[in-house]
């Protein structure tokens, strides 16, 4: 009975087919406000036009992650061909096709940073950088501030004081995942520039949050809460609400990744905003905390592996496909330009000057679930915990999961 149920589920699932008309490639995609279902269909229609007989079918993930969607499909014996938004780890690498023998892959962004045991399982379209502080030009002018002079955390804190005195909410935050992510965008730039191997060492059981460079950043953050530079009520905002509040001029600064630029462009606010690289307690400019954008993997159990590899090659090397994907989500890639707003151009300049892009992958990938725990501990700073408590909490959690 169970095999029967499974077989009918597979049949209903419409597995990859080699129909008489051609090949259907099933691709798991990520749907966001910037990357809509229509966007992907329009993009992939170009591939279908250039490759008659190939049909690209979107596999939507709904409320689950791409990882979970792939797990479901594999468990049902119905593997898709390609997936976006999955970054293989040493444990999961065998599920994906080793693309190391593809000569075109070497020129794709962050290819070497994402290797596992020297092998390439994932290939990206561009880079997202995230150690950025967007600011309202009007607020800075009113507070008499020059963004180019904010390079240290003390200067950043002083600027927040000036902005508060000028009548602005200094720094915009929000609830959901935003709180922890903003802290990560800030602290990782400083800590990982000073020691790019920090996370890899922590994974090996060396060091702790309580005795690391993260503690001073927790202290800065707590200090801002205590001084009212960050508002506790922000925890009751959604990501979209927080972003809208900043775009509407209710706050002066907003820590966010380069993917904020398309939102600012869409709101026609790009010319009113500026951006500077994250101040740190160490080197300036610091490395940019970042990641591969639009990561593609070819599923090892794909029934059309050769076609899937050809498709991924197109998605990550075709100039028009690249430009479209870069522009849609505010991503960047050396040697490629697309019509950018003044804000987008400023972000590109920051990337050009950054000494490195700090990537958390492979051995430097934090333990699974860490971002949720970090979010919880950073939010606890708003609700009474001390920086030492938060650092201890992170250590206790990490140790318990290892």
């Amino acid at each position, binding site marked *: 009975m169970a095999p029967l149920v499974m077989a009918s589920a597979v049949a209903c699932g419409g597995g990859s087919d080699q129909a008489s008309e051609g090949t259907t490639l099933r691709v798991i995609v990520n749907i966001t406000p910037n990357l809509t279902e229509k966007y992907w269909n329009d993009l992939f229609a170009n591939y279908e036009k250039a490759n008659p007989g190939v049909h690209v079918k979107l596999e939507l993930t709904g409320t689950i992650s791409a990882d979970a969607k792939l797990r479901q499909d594999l468990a049902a014996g119905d593997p898709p061909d390609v997936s976006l938004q999955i970054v293989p780890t040493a444990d999961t690498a065998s599920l994906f096709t080793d693309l190391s023998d593809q000569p075109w892959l070497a020129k794709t962004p962050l290819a070497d940073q994402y290797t596992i045991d020297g092998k390439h399982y994932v290939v990206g379209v561009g880079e997202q950088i995230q150690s950025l502080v967007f600011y309202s030009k009007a607020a800075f002018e009113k507070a008499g501030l020059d963004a180019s002079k904010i390079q240290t955390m003390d200067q950043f804190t002083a600027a927040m004081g000036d902005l508060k005195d000028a009548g602005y909410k200094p720094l915009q935050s929000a609830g959901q995942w935003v709180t922890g992510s903003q802290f990560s965008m800030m602290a990782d730039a400083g800590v990982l520039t000073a020691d790019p191997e920090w996370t890899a060492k922590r994974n090996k059981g060396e060091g702790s949050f309580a005795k690391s460079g993260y503690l001073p950043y927790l202290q800065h953050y707590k200090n801002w809460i205590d001084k009212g530079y960050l508002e506790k009520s922000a925890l009751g905002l959604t990501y979209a609400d927080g972003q809208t*509040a900043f775009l509407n001029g209710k706050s002066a600064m907003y820590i966010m990744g380069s993917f904020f630029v398309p939102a600012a462009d869409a709101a026609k606010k790009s010319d009113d905003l500026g951006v500077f690289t994250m101040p740190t307690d160490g080197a300036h400019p610091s490395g940019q905390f970042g990641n591969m954008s639009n990561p593609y993997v070819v599923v090892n159990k794909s029934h059309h592996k050769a076609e899937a590899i050809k498709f991924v090659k197109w998605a990550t090397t075709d100039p028009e496909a690249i430009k479209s994907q870069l522009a849609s989500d505010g991503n960047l890639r050396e040697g490629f330009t697309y019509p950018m707003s003044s804000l987008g151009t400023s972000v590109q300049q920051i990337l050009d000057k950054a000494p490195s892009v700090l990537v958390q992958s492979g051995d430097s990938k934090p333990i699974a679930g860490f971002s949720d725990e970090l979010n919880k501990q950073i939010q606890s700073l*708003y609700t009474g915990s001390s920086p030492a408590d938060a650092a201890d909490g992170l250590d206790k959690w990490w140790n*318990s999961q290892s």
Partner: protein
Amino acid sequence: MVELAKLNAGLNDRSRRQARLRESAVSLGMMGPAVLLYTVMTVVPVGVAVYLSFTDWDGFSTASFTGLDNYKHLFDDPSSSDAWYVTALIAAVGTVLMVGLGLVYALALKGRSRSNSFFRAVAYFPHVISALILGYLWAAILGTNGAINNTLAKFGIEPVGFLFDEQFALISLIAVIVWAGFGFNVVLFVAALQTVPAELLEAAAIDGASKRQINLRIVIPMISPVVTVATVLNLVGLIRAYDIVVSLTGGGPAGSTQTFTYLILARSFEGTKVGYATAQAVFLMVVSAVLALLVTALRNRQDQAATS
């Protein structure tokens, strides 16, 4: 003659046995599909889940047997203990409020009239809508930029921390859960109230019992089996609270509304710790079963004490 009677009795016995066998075969034949379906759809998945809970399966690669490691981890994982505290609080307070309010509401609306039907429908209405949508709806009302705080802001009043203050967020979550779910109890209790014999109530009234005495001494004891069922259903349901948590608070702030089911689905499964997540789920199933049995046993003991 005696021999003939014995032979007849023997034949009768045999035909009775054959009839019983035929009956059993027919019964089994009729039950067969249901038993098979139940086994395939429930028993096998639960069995597989129990097996996976003893492995370190990540959902991708081959599972390897790790004995009781996942269950030991349940007790040294700080996230698990925090989530259990929140879950226990929601289940205990929520059940008391949902059953209590449902009972009071049902008693107030036990008569048959148009207005009573309307108010019963009003109470039941939230139960019809997806809990996920109700959560989003209330988030739009209670959030920092929500309807209430926006109105307060117009009068220069600071936002109330319905969703951003730890204690307030938990209270808000419980309040929304109770609001969304107590209508189900109302329907159960109203149905039960209609089974209470009218003559009994009339007799009590003639004997001079007040409305309060009638309700406390006659009506509630008579519908107590339904109250027990409602208590068990609410308790087990609230232990699995997830949908409203996701859409209303997302487990925040600072994990203050993170329930155990939220932890399993949002963190353990998403973090590809399928073996551990399954152990958490099995643990949840066992706790739910124990609680349900406990409530029923307590109720039975109370009933026996009342009748003896």
